[in-house]
C-alpha cells in the first residue's frame, strides 16, 4: 500500500515539544512557534540606587555588572562557557567594552566567550538584547547574554570629555544643533508643543510612585531583583557594607502637594521638575537569550519570546515622542493593535513625554507601567532597556496566562525603540 505509506508520511507531527501548548488548552498564540524563535530564559537585575547618594555611589560598574552576569548564569543553570556572545548596553562609561570584559572575568566566564558594548543612548539595554538576538538569528550561536549597566554616580553626562571638543559647524545644521538641547528642555518642548500640563505630569508621576510602592509592598519585584552587597564610604571616610534589596527611589508618601511645590528644574516658568522626571541612578540588568530549539533541548523554561522590534527617528528637540512612533511601528509589523497588548513598559524619562505617548496612542493608563516606571524606580540609562524586559516578563508571568507586552523608550538625539514580547503562559 504505497498510497497509505505516502499519506502517513504527510502526517508527521511538527515537533512534540512545539505542540505541547495545544495540549495545555490555552488560547492559541497569535504567533506560531518556530525552532528559531528568540527566547528569554532568565531576566534579573540589581536594585536601582540613587546616584551620588545611594548604596552604589562607590561601586564600580564592572562589579555591579558582574553581579547580574553571575545571577543570570546561576538562574539559567548553564555552563558559562556555553555562552556564544555577550553584549552590554551603556551610555556614560567611556571604556564600557573594557568594563564589560572585566565584569565577565569577575563572574568566572572564561576568556573564550567574547563580549562587546553598545550605545544607543537610553535604549542601549534593549539594543544589547537585539544585538544578541541578531547573532542567534544569524546562526552565529544559540545562547547569548545581553545586559545593561549605568553608574551615573561616576559617569555623568554633563562632565563627559566628549562634549568639550564639539565641531563648531554643529550650529549650522538645525537638527545637529538641536541634538545639543538638554534633555530637560526637550521635555519642556514636548509639554509646550502638545499642551501637557504641570498637573498632568505630576499626577502621572504620583501614580508611578504609588504603583512602585504597592508593587514593592506586595513583593512583585522579588522575581527580578537580586540582593546586592556594596561598600559605601560615608562622609567621614568610613567604609561599610550595605545589602540592598529594593529600588531606592520609590517614595510611597509623596502627594500632589509635595510634587506641586517643586520648582521647574530646567526652565523658568517650565513644568518639568525633579519630581516629574526620571531619577539619576546606578543599576545593572541582564537577560539570558536562547534559541527556542536550544532551550527545548536543555529543558529551560521560556520566560518570553521576542515577537517584534522597531526603532524610529524623531526630531531631536522633542526626542521624548519616540515611543509614540516606535510602538505603532512594531505593532503594525506584527499585525497587532494596542488592544492586543496586555502591558506597555514605556520608560518615564519625563512624565511629559511618557504621558504624551500614552495619550497619543490611546493606551489605557492601567496598561502602562503597572509596577511604576523610571520616575519612581530610577533610570540608569544603559540598564533601562534590559531592566524593562525583566520587569515586563516577570509581571506577565505572575499574571499566569499567555500575554503580550511591549517595552519602549525615547532616545536622546531623537529616536524611539520598541520591542514586542510574548509570555507563553504558565
Amino acid at each position: 500500500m504505497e498510497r497509505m505509506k505516502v499519506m502517513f508520511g504527510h502526517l508527521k507531527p511538527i515537533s512534540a515539544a512545539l505542540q505541547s501548548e495545544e495540549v495545555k488548552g490555552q488560547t492559541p498564540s497569535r504567533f506560531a512557534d518556530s525552532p528559531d524563535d528568540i527566547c528569554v530564559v532568565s531576566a534579573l537585575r540589581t536594585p536601582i540606587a540613587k546616584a551620588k547618594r545611594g548604596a552604589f555611589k562607590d561601586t564600580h560598574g564592572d562589579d555591579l555588572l558582574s553581579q547580574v552576569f553571575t545571577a543570570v548564569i546561576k538562574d539559567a543553570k548553564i555552563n558559562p562557557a556555553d555562552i556564544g556572545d555577550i553584549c552590554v548596553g551603556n551610555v556614560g562609561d567611556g571604556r564600557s567594552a573594557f568594563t564589560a570584559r572585566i565584569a565577565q572575568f569577575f563572574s568566572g566566564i572564561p576568556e573564550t566567550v567574547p563580549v562587546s558594548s553598545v550605545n544607543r543612548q537610553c535604549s542601549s539595554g534593549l539594543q544589547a538584547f537585539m544585538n544578541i538576538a541578531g547573532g542567534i538569528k544569524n546562526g552565529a550561536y544559540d545562547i547569548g547574554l545581553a545586559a545593561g549597566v549605568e553608574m551615573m554616580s561616576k559617569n555623568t553626562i554633563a562632565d563627559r570629555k566628549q562634549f568639550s571638543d564639539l565641531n563648531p559647524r554643529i550650529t549650522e545644521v538645525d537638527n545637529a544643533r538641536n541634538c545639543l538641547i538638554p534633555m530637560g528642555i526637550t521635555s519642556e518642548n514636548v509639554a509646550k508643543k502638545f499642551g501637557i500640563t504641570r498637573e498632568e505630569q505630576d499626577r502621572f508621576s504620583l501614580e508611578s510612585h504609588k504603583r512602585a510602592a504597592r508593587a514593592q509592598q506586595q513583593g512583585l519585584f522579588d522575581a527580578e531583583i537580586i540582593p546586592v552587597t556594596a561598600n559605601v564610604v560615608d562622609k567621614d571616610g568610613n567604609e561599610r557594607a550595605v545589602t540592598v534589596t529594593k529600588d531606592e527611589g520609590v517614595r510611597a508618601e509623596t502627594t500632589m502637594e509635595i510634587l506641586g511645590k517643586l520648582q521647574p528644574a530646567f526652565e523658568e516658568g517650565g513644568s518639568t521638575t525633579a519630581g516629574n522626571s526620571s531619577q539619576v541612578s546606578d543599576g545593572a540588568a541582564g537577560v539570558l537569550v536562547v534559541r527556542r530549539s536550544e532551550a527545548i533541548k536543555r529543558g529551560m523554561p521560556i520566560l518570553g519570546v521576542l515577537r517584534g522590534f522597531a526603532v524610529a527617528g524623531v526630531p531631536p528637540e522633542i526626542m521624548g515622542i519616540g515611543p509614540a512612533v516606535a510602538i505603532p511601528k512594531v505593532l503594525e509589523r506584527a499585525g497587532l493593535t494596542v488592544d492586543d497588548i496586555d502591558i506597555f513598559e514605556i520608560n518615564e524619562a519625563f512624565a511629559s513625554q511618557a504621558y504624551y505617548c500614552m495619550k497619543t496612542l490611546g493606551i489605557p493608563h492601567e496598561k502602562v507601567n503597572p509596577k511604576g516606571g523610571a520616575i519612581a524606580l530610577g533610570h540608569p540609562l544603559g540598564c533601562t532597556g534590559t531592566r524593562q524586559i525583566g520587569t515586563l516578563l516577570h509581571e506577565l508571568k505572575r499574571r499566569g496566562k499567555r500575554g503580550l507586552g511591549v517595552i519602549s523608550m525615547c532616545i536622546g538625539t531623537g529616536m524611539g525603540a520598541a520591542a514586542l514580547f510574548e509570555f507563553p503562559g504558565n
Partner: protein
Amino acid sequence: MTLSFRTIGKHGYAVEYSPYFHQRLACTTSQYYGLAGSGTLFILDSTPGGFLLVQAYDWNDGLFDVTWAENNENLIITGAGDGSLLLFDVAQSKGPLKAWKEHTKEVNSVDWSQTRDEHLVLSGSWDTLIKMWDIGRNQSLCTFVGHEYIVYSVVWSPHIPGCFASASGDHTLRIWDARQPQFARTVIPAHNAEVLTCDWCKYDKNMIFSGGVDSLIRGWDLRNTRQCAVELSGHQYAVRRIKTYPFDGQILGSCSYDFTVRLWDIRQPHHLDCIQHHKEFVYGLDFNVHKPGLVADCGWDELVHEYSPQCLLPR
C-alpha cells in the same frame, strides 16, 4: 453564505474554477480517500439556489488533480491514480475524449499554460517525472528528469514563457525551463520535509510560494533563493495546497491536513483568516478569477464549499 455540494462516497482532491464561466467549477475526487477504488470528476455550476451538477465522469482509479483548458471553454484535463492523463469535453456526457498513459505511477498534478500562444499541459507524477503535453499529439513532448521522489505539484509561471516550478517529496522546489528537460534551472531546498505544493505570485514574476509537511508556507525570491523571503506558520499539519490570490499580490490561501483553510497577507506573520468548515483533510482550493473574494475548497469529508471569506471582502 456558503454553498455546499456533497460528493457522496467520493473524497475531494482538487477544485478548479473555469477560466470562462464565473459560476463553473470542476472537482476531482476518489473513492476510499484515494487509497483505492475509483474516481469521479464533477462539473458544478453554482447558482443562487445551490450547486447544480452539470456532469459527472467516472474513472476506474482515483482522480487527483484537474486543470481547465485556456483556449476552449469545454475542455478539461485530469490526472489519475493509474498514471493516465485524461481529456474531457464537458459538453458531452460521456468521456474521456482521450487518455494518455506514459507515467508509471499516480499523476498528482496537472497544469495548463496560461500566457503563451502554445497551449501546453504539464503533469507531475509519483514516478518522479514531469511531462509536457500538447493535446493534439499522441505522445508527450518531453520528460523532465531530476526529482528524486514524488512530484506533487507542477505550475507554469504566469509571467515567464516556458518557465515552470515543481514541488517534490525530495524536499526541493525546482524551477525549470521547458527547453531544457535534462536539468532544472534552480533547485531550492525549500523545506526540511516533503514539499507538497507551490504557486507563483501573479504580480511579481520573481516570487513563488511553497508549502510542506513541516506545516510551513515559504515565499522565495528567485533572485536570491539561499533563504526564504517570507515564512508563514500557523498550520498544525502539512500544507496540502496553496493558491495565490488573483486580485492582490500580497494575499494567498492554503489548505491543510489540519482540516483548515487559511488566508494570509504575506506582510503579516499570522493568518488573516482561518476557515474551519471541513471535518477532514482539506485537499482542494481555488480562487474565482471573475469574482473577487470568492473561494472554493474540497476535502475528504465529501464536501465542496463555495464562500467569500470576511477578510477578502472590500473594505
